[in-house]
């Protein structure tokens, strides 16, 4: 792949990226969230079309217009979210869409199963081709996808974060399998954050950063630290300014927080009144999940939350709200706003009791508080009666913020607060967060944007696979430390999560 470029509305995903894959080679593709790894592979897999650049296979230039084209060229893509049909059996999944027919035009089931068995053997899988997929573990389901790729005589198999749902043993088995496939002449593109696995199997490591090539390492040099330094390498101008406002450490304590996604992990941390505590980590680290458990949105999650020495018992979102703990969720259109309602209706939704007497809402009082928020947050809207759907992303986010700000938050949790928002609005939201903290609130900010995490947070807690791997004081906040903690490598500078 040479000079590949790809834009999406508002963002350049790939800029002049080149990649070579040799036959029978295991190539690891690494990079931060948003670096462009998945996008690049989706172009190879025919899911996206490049805006620039060319692809050639065996020296011949090729056009990959859709998934079928890429399959014909021998590319198989095993996505992070498996594409198996769990209401069918193994053989049916492997031959989906290409079922051999008999003379009557009906599916030749005997042949389907007969052709699947050798594939399963080749993978060392001890399961019958008649096993229904929903009876298999995720690891085995993944193997079935690999069998499908092999049945297509794939020459390149792309694996996107294949071990994120596997146990240690299953991971070892998969890595063995990758090496076996390599022996058989199949090339593997291995997208992963798990650098220890990458060190183990990769012949070469290609690193992408901000949609561009950031470097390539041969096996001998592909060590953890070098890969990390290539992943983060850019200069982040530090625009952090410490705030002079007083902070009360230990004001907000969270103990034994468990989310339904990582039920075996317990999260503990403290946050000071007046501080912005950043939560960094890779996608899937469990940050959003633990925060939802803290505010009662996870029926199978739990947490012991203390504010100013008093425990806040939280079983449902209304309890959290009652204690002044508010969440600005990740997906503002699906979770943060009722997009068909107006600015006014959204702003007052959680606090309607304050604007009503005898259960009847007073539009006057609603309008008053809405106008206050529009003014103080500088929300660009024709008025309070505008339907929120018609506002830009940044202004929609301000409406979400205004909703909570009108209720004097004690603890404000923001999940990816500036995702999809232009630079100007971003700065305003950061300013708001700082103001809120200075006035005595606790701010927890989940962010996958390294620059944001480093420039806005007073301290940074980093999560990895459901637990906090370390908390960095201001002085130790730099990209390498954050990235190392994010991939699970412990570092000396990281403080333990709880003091005392």
């Amino acid at each position, binding site marked *: 792949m040479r000079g590949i470029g790809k834009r999406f509305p508002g963002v350049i995903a790939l800029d002049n990226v080149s990649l070579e894959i040799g036959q029978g080679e295991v190539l690891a593709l690494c990079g931060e969230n948003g670096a462009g790894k998945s996008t690049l592979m989706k172009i190879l897999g025919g899911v996206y079309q490049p805006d620039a650049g060319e692809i050639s296979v065996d020296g011949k230039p090729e056009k990959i217009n859709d998934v079928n084209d890429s399959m014909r060229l021998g590319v198989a893509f095993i996505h992070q979210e498996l594409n198996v049909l769990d209401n069918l059996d193994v053989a049916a999944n492997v031959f989906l869409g290409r079922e051999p027919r008999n003379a009557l035009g009906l599916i030749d089931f005997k042949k389907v199963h007969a052709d699947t068995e050798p594939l399963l053997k080749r993978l060392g899988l001890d399961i019958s081709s008649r096993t229904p997929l929903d009876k298999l573990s995720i690891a085995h389901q993944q193997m079935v996808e690999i069998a499908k790729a092999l049945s297509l005589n794939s020459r390149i198999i792309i694996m996107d974060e294949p071990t994120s749902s596997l146990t240690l043993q299953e991971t070892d088995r998969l890595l063995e399998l990758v090496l076996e496939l390599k022996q058989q002449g199949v090339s593997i593109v291995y997208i992963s954050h798990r650098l220890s696995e990458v060190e183990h199997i990769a012949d070469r490591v290609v690193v992408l950063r901000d949609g561009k090539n950031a470097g390539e390492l041969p096996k001998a040099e592909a060590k953890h630290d070098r890969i990390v330094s290539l992943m983060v390498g850019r200069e982040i101008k530090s625009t952090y300014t410490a705030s002079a406002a007083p902070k009360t450490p230990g004001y907000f304590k969270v103990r034994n927080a468990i989310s339904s996604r990582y039920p075996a992990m317990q999260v503990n941390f403290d946050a000071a009144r007046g501080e912005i505590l950043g939560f960094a980590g890779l996608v899937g680290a469990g940050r959003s999940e633990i925060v939802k458990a803290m505010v009662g949105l996870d029926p199978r999650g739990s947490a012991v939350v203390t504010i100013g020495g008093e425990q806040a018992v939280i079983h449902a979102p*209304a309890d959290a709200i009652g204690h002044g703990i508010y969440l600005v969720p990740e997906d503002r259109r699906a*979770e943060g706003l009722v997009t068909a309602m107006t600015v006014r209706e959204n702003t007052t*939704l959680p606090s*309607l*009791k304050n604007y009503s007497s005898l259960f009847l*809402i007073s539009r006057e009082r609603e309008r008053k508080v809405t106008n206050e928020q529009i003014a103080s947050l500088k929300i660009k809207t024709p008025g309070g009666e505008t339907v929120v759907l*018609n506002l830009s992303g940044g202004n929609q986010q301000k409406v979400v913020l205004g909703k909570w700000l009108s209720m004097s938050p004690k603890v404000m949790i923001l999940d990816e607060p500036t995702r999809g928002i232009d630079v100007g609005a971003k700065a305003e939201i950061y300013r708001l967060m700082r103001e809120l903290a200075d006035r005595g609130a606790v701010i927890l900010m989940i962010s996958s944007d390294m620059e944001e995490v480093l420039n806005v947070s007073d301290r940074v807690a980093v999560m990895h696979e459901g637990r906090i791997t370390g908390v960095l004081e201001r002085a130790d906040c730099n990209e390498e430390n954050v990235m190392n903690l994010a991939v699970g490598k412990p570092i000396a500078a990281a403080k333990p999560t709880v003091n005392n």
Partner: protein
Amino acid sequence: MRLVAKKEFGIFILLLVLCGVTGFKNPRFFSGANLGNTVNLIGLFGVFSLGVGLVIITGGIDLSIGSMCALTGVILAMALSEWHWSWPLAVLLVLAISVTLGWVHGFFVTRAKLQPFIVTLCGLLIYRGVARFIAHDVTKGFSDATGIDTLRSLASGKLWGLPMPFVILLVLAIIMWFVLHRSIYGRYLLAVGRNEQAARFSGINTRLVIASAYTIAGLLTGVSGILIAFYTNSVSPSNHGNFYELYGIAAAVLGGCSLRGGEGSVIGIVIGTALLIVLQNLVNLLGIDSSLNFAVMGAVVLLGVLADQMFKTRAAKKNVRQA
């Protein structure tokens, strides 16, 4: 205070046009007897349409209305005629049953997480069966009932020259209007129907809100059941109330309730009901074959929803261009 929105105005005009056309073609439309009957029917059908409208706003649906009317009608008739209960007790029994059944619907939808279509479809089948069983498939009436004159005049008499069902509809509609458009509960209903997740994230007890909509619908169906029983004066368990749910849903949809939830207006539901009743009247008075009754209704509802969809798409396009 904006009382009438564009959509409601639209169907109101349509209603006036239909009345005008019918009256023009057949002046009997304006006769006291015909108008009185039409208004009466609007009242009868409107009460349960309000209920089903509420449920539709939460994003659900209620298919059991007709069968519930049959069941309540049968029980009312038997309680008054055969078990000789006093009428307040009989009315209380019937309302208690319908509220409970509504609550059961709500329970299955919110706790067992079953789809409203399925839950109320089963209701449709079960209540009809129970009604037929209790009545041994015999048509029940009020001829053997005593001391029901008060009830009869409450259910089918006149107040200020208007049929009681219509008066009851007006009263209920006014209450519902305040509830839906001015109360906290109404705001929660609209939010939950539109985006249950976001409502939950804002601390609303979405389960309670949805379940209560079904319970209220049950109550309103019970009230309708009593009124309709006295209108028909006899209850045939096998076909009393047949298809009423479709009238209710059609009226709600015509009146602006989107089946996707989160949208609806009380005035719209009332006008929608009126539209359907007048349409039926139109078919009768204009000599159109009565077998086409449902066809005409279906066509009008389809056109109405189509027109609404086109307006929405045009409005959305305009907004995208402005943004």
